[in-house]
């Protein structure tokens, strides 16, 4: 149950609706410029603008003689407040007070100019509307367990733009090519903050237990220090609810040899004996996987996975003759495209 509190907080942080709606009506005078046009008052005489003695009129200087000067070495003198005494030596008559008409005439517009300026254009210019996708097989691994050779997987994909995406997620385990447990999720995700997405969709359980269908609501993102976090609440039939939280972190031993830390916890509101699940915190997994990125997209790894059951889930396991905790060596590949 302790899991719920932090997850709730994450939700509270991430749930607010899209950014702009939230700020409608806020009056942010200095920062308002959406198409940012700030009318400026007529410019006062130049001396006011530059209390620094440096601001002499360059047009009166012969820059050709300045080649040897290193401007970067020039330090503006310390000025506290606007020190007008610094300006006494300046000859105001030399300052070009800006004219109101252009020094080079602006050509009068002819009808031909107008036609050339706004030709009939039938195509539409587009930038930033591309639809992309990402397919990641984060874990595809084998391990030797009491039940035989176990194949575990965790996959993730997104399709869409920068803000709205369809997410696919799946994880599970199969033993001797029979799926023992696993799930597939299809979610709509929307970025609500720079690093956070909220998600809603469905989860379908697959495998030996009851094949339950859940509504899923989640948040995922990149926390400070580049922790990848995902937390999802599930609502099933008959008032069942479940929670899953997952965190991943990469430690770069080198830029190719990467140690991936991973933790996942699951909790359920109601026991589900057919699935071997008790109520409350049911399982926690920890893993450390050392991968070598042969290329960015292909990385074999070896690792250690530890999982532990709690509460009634542990009882179910004991009754089935399994251990409550299990530590095993895994070997697999990480691939994306």
């Amino acid at each position: 149950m302790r899991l719920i509190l932090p997850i709730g907080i994450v939700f509270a942080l991430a749930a607010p609706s899209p950014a702009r709606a939230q700020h409608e009506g806020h009056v942010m005078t200095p920062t308002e410029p959406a198409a940012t046009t700030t009318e400026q008052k007529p410019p006062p005489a130049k001396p006011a603008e530059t209390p620094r003695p440096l601001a002499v009129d360059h047009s009166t200087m012969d820059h050709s003689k300045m080649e040897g000067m290193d401007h970067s070495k020039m330090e503006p003198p310390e000025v506290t407040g606007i020190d007008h005494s610094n300006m006494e030596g300046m000859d105001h008559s030399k300052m070009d007070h800006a004219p109101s008409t252009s020094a080079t005439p602006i050509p009068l517009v002819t009808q031909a100019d107008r036609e050339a300026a706004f030709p009939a254009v039938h195509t539409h210019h587009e930038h930033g509307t591309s639809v992309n996708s990402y397919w990641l097989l984060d874990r595809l691994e084998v391990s030797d367990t009491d039940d035989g050779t176990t194949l575990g997987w965790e996959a993730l994909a997104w399709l869409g733009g920068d803000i709205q995406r369809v997410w696919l997620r799946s994880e599970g385990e199969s033993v001797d090519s029979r799926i023992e447990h696993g799930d597939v999720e299809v979610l709509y995700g929307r970025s609500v903050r720079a690093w956070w997405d909220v998600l809603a969709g469905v989860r379908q359980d697959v495998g030996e237990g009851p094949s339950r269908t859940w509504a899923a609501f989640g948040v995922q993102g990149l926390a400070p220090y580049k922790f990848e976090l995902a937390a999802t609440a599930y609502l099933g039939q008959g008032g069942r609810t479940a929670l899953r939280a997952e965190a991943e972190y990469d430690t770069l031993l080198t830029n190719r040899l990467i140690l991936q830390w991973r933790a996942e916890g699951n909790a359920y509101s109601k026991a589900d004996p057919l699935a071997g699940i008790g109520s409350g915190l049911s399982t926690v997994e920890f893993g450390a996987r050392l991968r070598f990125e042969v290329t960015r997209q292909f990385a074999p790894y070896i690792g250690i996975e530890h999982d532990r059951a709690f509460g009634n889930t542990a009882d179910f396991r004991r009754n089935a003759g399994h251990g409550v905790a299990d530590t095993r060596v895994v070997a697999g590949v990480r691939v994306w495209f």
Partner: protein
Amino acid sequence: MSFKYPGVSPGIAMPSRRRFVQGLATGGALAGLGLWPQTGWAQQSRKMPVLRGTEFDLSVGETLVNYTGQTRPAVTINGTLPGPLLRWKEGTTVTLRVRNDLPRGSIHGPDTSIHWHGLVLPANMDGVPGMSFDGIRPGESYLYRFDVKQAGTYWYHSHSGFQEQGGMYGPLVIDPAGPDPIASDRDFVVMLSDWTDMDPAKLFARLKKMASHDNVYQRTVGDFMRDAERKGMPATVADRRMWGQMRMTPSDLSDVNGQTYTYLLNGTAALGNWTGVFAPGDKVRLRLINGSAMTYFDVRIPGLKLTVVAADGQPVHPVTVDEIRIGAAETYDVIVQPGGQEAYTVFAQDSARTGYVSGTLAVREGLRAPIPPLDPRPIMSMADMGHGDMQTGHDMGAMASTQPAAAADPHAGHAMPGTPPPPSADPHGGHAMGTGAGAMSGMGHGAGGMQTHPASETNNPLVDMQTMAPTPKLDDPGIGLRDNGRRVLTYADLRSNFADPDGRDPARTVELHLTGHMEKFAWSFDGLKFAQAEPLRMTYGERLRIVLVNDTMMSHPIHLHGMWSDVEDADGNFQVRKHTVDMPPGSKRSYRVRADALGRWAYHCHLFFHMESGMFREVRVEE
């Protein structure tokens, strides 16, 4: 050799083994696919083709090139990469028939266009599909005809699809109507660019999947140990905390680097050794053009001083330096006077120090000078990002303003004790814009004062960072170039050798923020991508000031089509006329624009994939 290359029409023989090797060595284009003027498997001449006059026929097509050992289709103009050097004369009217000969099914197709970068011309000649015209469909042509009203070094490139990354760019040199005030005995174009074997569309898709793909220089456990030993554990932990809070890495200097790119000089990789031949005592004019999609180059010629005489085609008071950082789309004309050595290396390393391209200036072909090693890879500091000169050990918890907890008030807790307040104790208390601070020109805020941000950035998922105390940084050589023992050109060195051509004070100020999200690889102005943003409207004849604030940790070369960007100095005075204004991270710079060109104009970051992902606005000048 029966494997199939995408986009290559059947029936074209694959290169022989011998040609293949040649191609790698010279890095040139292997073939024109039956397009004018080249046919068959002619190897590109190492001398850049030059087209002079006032009438031009240009054909956009696909050409096989080999820069890495792999033969790949490039999109080219008249079969060469870069396209031919176009040499015009100021005061003439040029006519260009541009025909789309891209093969059906080309990865670079279907439509094409040519934009004349930095040229002042009518909007329907500007070559931006969807704004200036409809683009050029396969098999069709577009007739460009306009008066040439300026002189100097420029370039041209496609504004369609991903063609600019695919090889479709070329140099453009306009000779002055009268005698050239910049006298020289030799005149070479040095066009730098970045080539990838990847389909550029796939490269963009990869950036969207994993923006940090090429950043294989991230700090590791070993680096932590070393830093802890050198700087002490508390400082190291504090440093890692700051970056960790922001979820960013200080080694993130460019989005695409030498991991993906092969850098080219006049369409030749370093192995091919482009060579410019001089006679001892010659005054040699080099026209540096950065035609790359995503690369800033640091250029130098060990043993020679570079005298910069023009920037973005426009003459400047000569300034002599050892090294120049050239942003994407910028051009610099430099004069060098080789002598004493038979050969000099023209060395251009990318700003992240992941690769280089070099060529040679020599008294004859075939000579080489030593190629210097890449400089050490720099690491960004908080000051680089406009977060002031932070002392380590400050609680940075409130710094990541887009963090949910701090979101309600993005500036809560942003008082940075480490930021040196400059002139007075109350840095900008009375400096609110429009309260007599007009003279501050929206600039000159110096190194202090809290930067405000547009409301559209607040809680915006596409904005992962906001700068707190940006400065003009005009006299800053830039990340990786400070204190390197060489005199490096800065923007403060660039002064037009003419007075402000307009002379009026800007009547209004438009402030735009450069924004982005590194992980999503989403880039924008004010947090709004092109598709979400209204055009920036200007009234014909008005003079306004654009203030740019960089709210990202990347540099952005910002290019306004059709009109000049007259960069102001830190005090708000006219300083230098440019067409592309570099905006380093943590910078706030301003320039004046005279809206003297009616029509719809593109305004965008010239890092190609930043533009592609949304860092683009329409500027609309109306009567």
